[in-house]
């Protein structure tokens, strides 16, 4: 890698910041500390072998694991909802059509005049006239 790309803060006049950072991030110098940490790690592994410990599964890890299937499911749901809403709504149209074309069932009132519709062919017209005269 180009040396210029790896300039440190110390190369740019920030020695003081680096000194502070080194102080803040200095690992423990005591050898007994490392022996203790090693013992704790190995105890943790032993507990794991005995089935007493599980690794911490963070919310982030779980979210990352489910992000792709979750997005895919959401996408499918969105498409399904879009298709459903885009469908022509036939039911109200059909109902309106039937209301217009079906004859109304009206109970005949007493004394009401029977309205006879004149049929279109000649024979039926005569029959209708005859029925009208008889009814009066």
């Amino acid at each position, binding site marked *: 890698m180009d040396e210029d790309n790896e300039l440190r803060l110390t190369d740019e006049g920030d020695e*003081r910041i680096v000194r502070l950072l080194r102080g803040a991030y200095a690992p423990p110098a005591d050898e007994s500390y490392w022996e203790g940490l090693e013992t704790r790690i190995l105890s943790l592994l032993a507990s794991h072998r005995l089935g007493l410990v599980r690794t911490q599964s963070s919310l982030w*890890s779980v979210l990352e694991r489910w992000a792709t299937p979750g997005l895919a499911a959401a996408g499918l749901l969105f498409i399904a909802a879009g298709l459903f809403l885009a469908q022509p709504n036939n039911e109200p149209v059909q109902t309106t059509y039937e209301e217009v074309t079906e004859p109304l069932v009206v109970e005949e009132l007493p004394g009401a005049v029977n309205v006879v519709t004149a049929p279109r062919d000649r024979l039926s017209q005569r029959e209708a006239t005859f029925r009208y005269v008889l009814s009066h």
Partner: protein
Amino acid sequence: MTDAGRNPEERELVGLALEGDPRGFAGLVRLHQRRAYTVARSIVLSHEDAEDAVQEGFLRAYQALDRFDPGQPFGAWVNRIVANAALDLARRKKVRNAEELSDAMPSPFQDPAEDAELKARLKSALAKLPERSRAVVVLHDVEGFTHAEIGKLLGIPGGTARSDLHHARQRLRGLLENMRD
């Protein structure tokens, strides 16, 4: 800084660990725990969290040992796992007080009053940096890792590590205005 490499001791320990001999993994822990701590400490805000991340990282590595390629350096592999454990931990504890930065910070200054003020400002500035930015600055400028090595550790391209470093330094300088020599 490069990984310690595949020395004969590490090769032997990896072989033992893969055969299920507990002495193998114990030896690998002894060999790599300091570097793993450094990696974890660069990401989280406190010594205690770094310890937790190291333990969690070694446990994850132990569980995933059957997926380890013996042809690769064990140190680089385990450090990557520890870095992920530290990032998980940092995310879980994102809203944290800057006070959690160790109070036992060694003093590199003569004037106690100035030292206290600078330490307080450094704590505050570091806590304000996103965990990845903080890690990139510490790993590069304090621990001497290259952009490429940092990229491998944090799972990002080397160019991204370089860009992160540039922005993190700018932010840190802004937060620590008047502190530079």
